[in-house]
C-alpha cells in the first residue's frame, strides 16, 4: 500500500520536480517500475548436473548452459517460481532460490517444464510471496518502454535487481510465442521479468530463436538488441497445468514442408510421418495447406504463426487443396512427439558422376531389399514408382533418385524399372528398408565413378503426370537440395582457366584472417566428384597440422577421391561454438573451387574436435552429410532426422577412455532420432586416434555415404 502511495506521488510530482529535465523524470519513473516488481524477482543457483567431457568441448565456452546464478519470478504466493529452461539444460543436481527480504536460501524442485515456451516452474517452501501483475494481451504496444530485470549479476537478493532498459520491438515473434525487446538480455537476466513502465510484467525473458527449439537456442543473440520474452499473461494462463506437474510440449502435426522457402510459396506437404496426427487425419503428401483454423494462409510462415503457439493436445483445423478439391480436416489433435523421419533404403551403391539417364548400380548390399528383388551390380535403374505416383517416373542420376526417395518413409513399396547389364529390361518390386547403420564390406562391383561429373546431364523426357509436374516446378527453389545441376559448369570454366591446386595447401581465410590447411590428392580429376572431410583437431596440438594428419589420410584421399580441410581453432582449450561460422566459411570457400560430392561432406574430429563435429553438423544440416567422432560425448540432445537432409554418424569410443560411457551414450540418443549410427568400441583404445581396423571402417563408411 505504502509503495503505491509513493509511486503515485512520484508520478504526479515528477514533471514539476524535474523542471527542465524530462530525462530525470523518465529515469525515476522506470526505476520505480523496476522497484515495484523487484520483490518478486528471485535469485536461482544450481549445483552439479549433466557434465561434459573433461577439459571441455565446443559447448563448454560456446553454449555452456546456465552454470552461473540466474533469475526467476514469483508466480504464486505459495512458492511457485517461473524461470527460463536455459538455466536447467544441464539438469542440475540441486537448485536453490533466494527470495528478496527473506533470510537464507531455499531448496527448489522442478515442478514442470513448458518445452514450447522454454520455461521451467519451480516450487519452494514459502508462503506470502508477492506476485506481480501481468499486462493483459491487448495492452502490449510496440514501442512501449520495457525493462529487463535480473539477479545473476549480484548475489544479494536484497539489492536492487539488475536493470537494462529498452522498448517492445515487436509482438507475436518466434511463431506467435514471444514478445521482442531491444533491452539487453543475456544469461544475466534469462528467467527474469520484462517490466512495463507502470510496474506490470510484460513477459519472462528467454533465449529464443525462430529457427531453433532447444533450451539454449537463441543464446547467440544475447545482448544484441534482439531479445525475447514469453508474455506473462500466457504464463499465468498455463500455470494451473504446470502446477499440476504437467509438462507442456509444442503441438505437432507430423508433416514436413516442401522446400525451405517460408514466404514466397504455399505450404505444400512434402512428407507425412506415419502414425502422426496428419497421417491419421488423412493429410497426404502433395496437399497444399490453404487455411489453418479457418484463417487463410498463403505461405509456410503464415501457417507456422497459427500453429506455433499451440500445445500438444490442442486441436486444429487444416484446410488443404488436393488437385482441384478442397478438404478440411477438423479436430486434429496435435502431438507432442512425432516419430522422426526414417529414410527408405533400396540397398544399392550408385555409380557417381554419370550423366546418363537413370542410375547405374555399383554394388548391391547383401541381404538388402534390392538384393532380394534380384537387382545386381551393373543394372541400371531407369524409372521408379513410389506410393502415390500414377506411373513410374524417369530421372537423371543419383541425386534426383535420392530426392524422390526422400519423399517417402522406410517401409513403403517401391517399384523399379531397370535395364540389366545384358540390355534386357527387368522390373523389381521391393519394400524399402531403413537406411542401415553400418557400412558393408564392399562386394565386388563396378567403378565408383563414371568420371563424367562435368558432362552435361541428360534429362528425362517431360512425360510426367500432372501431379508430379506441379512438384517439379519448385524443385529449383528448394535450397537444401544437394548439387545444383548448374554448378559443375561454373566449375568447369574455372578448371579450364587454371588447373586446380593439389597437394597440401596452407591457406588463410580472407574474411577472417584465420588459418586452415587443405589437402587435394595429386590424382584430383575435376570429372570426379570428391568427398570432403573436415578435420577438426582435438584440444591438444596433436592433429592440428596438416602434415601429421595426412600421414594417415593422404593415401586414402587419393584412393577414395577425398579432399581434406583442416581449419584451426584459436582457442587453447578446444573449439568454441562461435567458431562454427569460420569452419563453414572455409568449406564454402573450397566448394566452388573443386568438384565436390555434396553427399559425402563429413565433419570428423576427436575429443573436443568431435564435439565440434556434432555441433557443426546439427547447425549446418544443408551442408554436412556425415559426422565421424572419436572420444567425443554428445553434449546436447540431438535434433530430429529430416527427410531432405540426410545425416549419418560414425561414433568411436575407446574402452579405456574414462568418458567411454558418455561417448557411447551418443549411439542410443542418435538412434532414437532415427539417424543411422555406426558405433565402434575399441577396447584397448584410450584417447588416441583410431586403430587400423576402425580407420578402415571409417573410410568405407565415407565411401558408402551416398547409399540408396
Amino acid at each position, binding site marked *: 500500500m505504502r509503495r503505491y502511495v509513493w509511486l503515485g506521488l512520484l508520478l504526479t510530482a515528477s514533471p514539476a520536480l524535474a*523542471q527542465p529535465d524530462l530525462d530525470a523524470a523518465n529515469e525515476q519513473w522506470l526505476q520505480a517500475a523496476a522497484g515495484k516488481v523487484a520483490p518478486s524477482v528471485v535469485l536461482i543457483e544450481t*549445483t552439479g548436473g549433466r557434465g561434459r567431457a573433461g577439459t571441455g568441448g565446443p559447448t563448454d565456452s560456446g*553454449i555452456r548452459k546456465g552454470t552461473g546464478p540466474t533469475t526467476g519470478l514469483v508466480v504464486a504466493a505459495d512458492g511457485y517460481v517461473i524461470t527460463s529452461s536455459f538455466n536447467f539444460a544441464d539438469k542440475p543436481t540441486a537448485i536453490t532460490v533466494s527470495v528478496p527480504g527473506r533470510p537464507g536460501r531455499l531448496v527448489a524442485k522442478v515442478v514442470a517444464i513448458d518445452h514450447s515456451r522454454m520455461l521451467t516452474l519451480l516450487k519452494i517452501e514459502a508462503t506470502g510471496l508477492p506476485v506481480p501483475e501481468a499486462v493483459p494481451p491487448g495492452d502490449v504496444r510496440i514501442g512501449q518502454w520495457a525493462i529487463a530485470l535480473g539477479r545473476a549479476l549480484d*548475489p544479494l537478493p536484497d539489492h*536492487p535487481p539488475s536493470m537494462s532498459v529498452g522498448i517492445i520491438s515487436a509482438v507475436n515473434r518466434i511463431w506467435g510465442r514471444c514478445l521482442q525487446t531491444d533491452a539487453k538480455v543475456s544469461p544475466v537476466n534469462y528467467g527474469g521479468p520484462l517490466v512495463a513502465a507502470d510496474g506490470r510484467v510484460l513477459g519472462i525473458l528467454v533465449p529464443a530463436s525462430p529457427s531453433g527449439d532447444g533450451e539454449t537456442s537463441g543464446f547467440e543473440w544475447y545482448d544484441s538488441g534482439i531479445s525475447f520474452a514469453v508474455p506473462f499473461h500466457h504464463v499465468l494462463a498455463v500455470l494451473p497445468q504446470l502446477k499440476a506437474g504437467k509438462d507442456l510440449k509444442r503441438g505437432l502435426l507430423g508433416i514436413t514442408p516442401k522446400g525451405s522457402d517460408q514466404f514466397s510459396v504455399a505450404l505444400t506437404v512434402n512428407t507425412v510421418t506415419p502414425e502422426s496426427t496428419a497421417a491419421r487425419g488423412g493429410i497426404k503428401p502433395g496437399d497444399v495447406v490453404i487455411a489453418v483454423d479457418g484463417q487463410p494462409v498463403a505461405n509456410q510462415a503464415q501457417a507456422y504463426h497459427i500453429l506455433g503457439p499451440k500445445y500438444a493436445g490442442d486441436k486444429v483445423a487444416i484446410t488443404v487443396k488436393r488437385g482441384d478439391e478442397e478438404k478440411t480436416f477438423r479436430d486434429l489433435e496435435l502431438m507432442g512427439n512425432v516419430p522422426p523421419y526414417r529414410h527408405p533404403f533400396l540397398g544399392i551403391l550408385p555409380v557417381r558422376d554419370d550423366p546418363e539417364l537413370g542410375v547405374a548400380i555399383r554394388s548391391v548390399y547383401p541381404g538388402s531389399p534390392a538384393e532380394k528383388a534380384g537387382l545386381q551390380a551393373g543394372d541400371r535403374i531407369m524409372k521408379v514408382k513410389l506410393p502415390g505416383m500414377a506411373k513410374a517416373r524417369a530421372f537423371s542420376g543419383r541425386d534426383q533418385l535420392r530426392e524422390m526417395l526422400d519423399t517417402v518413409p522406410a517401409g513403403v513399396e517401391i517399384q523399379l524399372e531397370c535395364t540389366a547389364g545384358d540390355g534386357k529390361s527387368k522390373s523389381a518390386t521391393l519394400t524399402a528398408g531403413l537406411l542401415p547403420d553400418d557400412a558393408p564390406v564392399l562386394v565386388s562391383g563396378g567403378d565408383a565413378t563414371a568420371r563424367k561429373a562435368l558432362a552435361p546431364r541428360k534429362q528425362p523426357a517431360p512425360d510426367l503426370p500432372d501431379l508430379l509436374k506441379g512438384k517439379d516446378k519448385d524443385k529449383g527453389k528448394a535450397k537444401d537440395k544437394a548439387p545444383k545441376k548448374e554448378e559443375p559448369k561454373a566449375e568447369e570454366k574455372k578448371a579450364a582457366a587454371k588447373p586446380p591446386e593439389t597437394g597440401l595447401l596452407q591457406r588463410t581465410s580472407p574474411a577472417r584472417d584465420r588459418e586452415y590447411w587443405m589437402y587435394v590428392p595429386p590424382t584430383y580429376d575435376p570429372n570426379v566428384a570428391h568427398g570432403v572431410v573436415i578435420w577438426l583437431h582435438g584440444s591438444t596440438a596433436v592433429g592440428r597440422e596438416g602434415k601429421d594428419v595426412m600421414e594417415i589420410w593422404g593415401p586414402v584421399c587419393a584412393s577414395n577421391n577425398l579432399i581434406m580441410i583442416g581449419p584451426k581453432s584459436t582457442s587453447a582449450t578446444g573449439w568454441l561454438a562461435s567458431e562454427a561460422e569460420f569452419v563453414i566459411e572455409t568449406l564454402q570457400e573450397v566448394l566452388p573451387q573443386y568438384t565436390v560430392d555434396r553427399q559425402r561432406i563429413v565433419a570428423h574430429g576427436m575429443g573436443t574436435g568431435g564435439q565440434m563435429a556434432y555441433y557443426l553438423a546439427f547447425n549446418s544440416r544443408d551442408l554436412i552429410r556425415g559426422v565421424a567422432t572419436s572420444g567425443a560425448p554428445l553434449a546436447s540432445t540431438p535434433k530430429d532426422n529430416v527427410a531432405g537432409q540426410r545425416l549419418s554418424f560414425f561414433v568411436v569410443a575407446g574402452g579405456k577412455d574414462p568418458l567411454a560411457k558418455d561417448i557411447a551414450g551418443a549411439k542410443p540418443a542418435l538412434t532414437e532420432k532415427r539417424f543411422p549410427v555406426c558405433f565402434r568400441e575399441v577396447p584397448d583404445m584410450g584417447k588416441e586416434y583410431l586403430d587400423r581396423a576402425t580407420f578402415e571402417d571409417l573410410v568405407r563408411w565415407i565411401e558408402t555415404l551416398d547409399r540408396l
Partner: protein
Amino acid sequence: MKIRATIALVFLAAAAPAQDRYATIAQATNARMVKVFGSGGFRGVVAYGTGIVVSPDGYVLTAAGSLLDTPELRVHLPDGRRCSAKLVVIEPALDAALIKVEMVEDLPFFDVAAAAARPLALPGTWILGFTNCFEIATRDEAMSVQRGVIQAYTRLPLQRGIFEAPYTGEVYVLDAVTNNPGAAGGALVSRSGTLLGLIGKELRNAAADTWVNYAVPVQARIEVRDGEAKRIVSLAEFVSLGMRGQYKPTAKPEKSAGDGGYHGIVLVPNVVERTPPYVEETVPGSPAAAAGLRPDDLIVYVDGEPVISVAAFRAIMSRTHAGQVIKLEVRRGDRLEPVELKLGERKPQK
C-alpha cells in the same frame, strides 16, 4: 497552472538544439577526453586507448595495460594537438594508470576528488559512455558516445573464476555495449555530466560466454593485500597523490601456491566437468568429521559462495588457510544444513 507553465518551458527547451541536455554534456565531456596511442598492434592487443583529463596541466587517468609500455606514448587532445606523454604511475589493484601530457596548460578537466565525493549511482541511472573504441577518432575528432543505463552495481565475481580482470572491487555493469577495443580508460558520465567512472577493458564472463560491459566507479575504494600487509586503495587518492608524485603502488599480489587449509572431506570422484560435490566420506578425526559432515551431503555453498562442482570446491578451498573457520551449507535430504569447519594444518605429503 504552475505545472502547465513548466511543461511548456520544458518543450521549448527541448526544441532548441543548443539546449539539448545530452548534446551539452557530450560537448563538455569531449573537451575533457584524450586519445592515447602506445604500444600494441599485435595478437589482438590494440595500440590505442582512451583517457580522461583530470588536471589543467595535463594529467590523464586511463586504464593500465601494455598500451603504456612504451617511451613513445602519444595523446591527441580534443583540439587536435598531438602531444607526447609520460607514464606517471600504475595501480594494478585498480587497473588504472596516470599519465602526464607534456607541455600543456589550462585544459578543461574532470575533478576526480569532487566526483568521488558524490553518492554512487543506482541501477537504472541513465548514463553516457565516451570512448575511442575501434580508433574511430583521431586528432580533434570526437569520441564515440553511447547511451544506456547502469544495469547493476556489483562485484566482478573474480573469486568464482569467471572473470579475468585484475580489478576486484565493485563495478557499474552497463547495458550499453561500451567495452570494445580501445575503449578502456573512457569516461562514464551521468545524464547531468558528472563523472561516474572509468570504462574498463573487454571482459568475458567465461561461464556464460558473454561479454561484460563495465566501468570502475570513481568512488572505487578497495582493500587489497600489499605483500603481507593489507591496505585500502582508492581511485581518488590514486589520482590526487599520483599528480603530486607521492603515490606508492601496491605490489602485484602473489598467487598463493598452497593447497589451503585441511578439511578432511573426501568427495566423490571428479568424473565429469560439473560433478556435483557430494561428500563420499570424511577422514576420521578430521575437521570435517568433527563438524558432523556425512556421506551423501551435497556441498552447495562455502561462505555463501555457490559451489557448482567438485572442481569449484577445490578451487575455493585452495584459497583458505589453516585456522580459518569456513561455513558450509550442505543439502541433506530436502534441507540446507549449515556446517562450520575449523580448518587444520595440512600434513606434509611424502
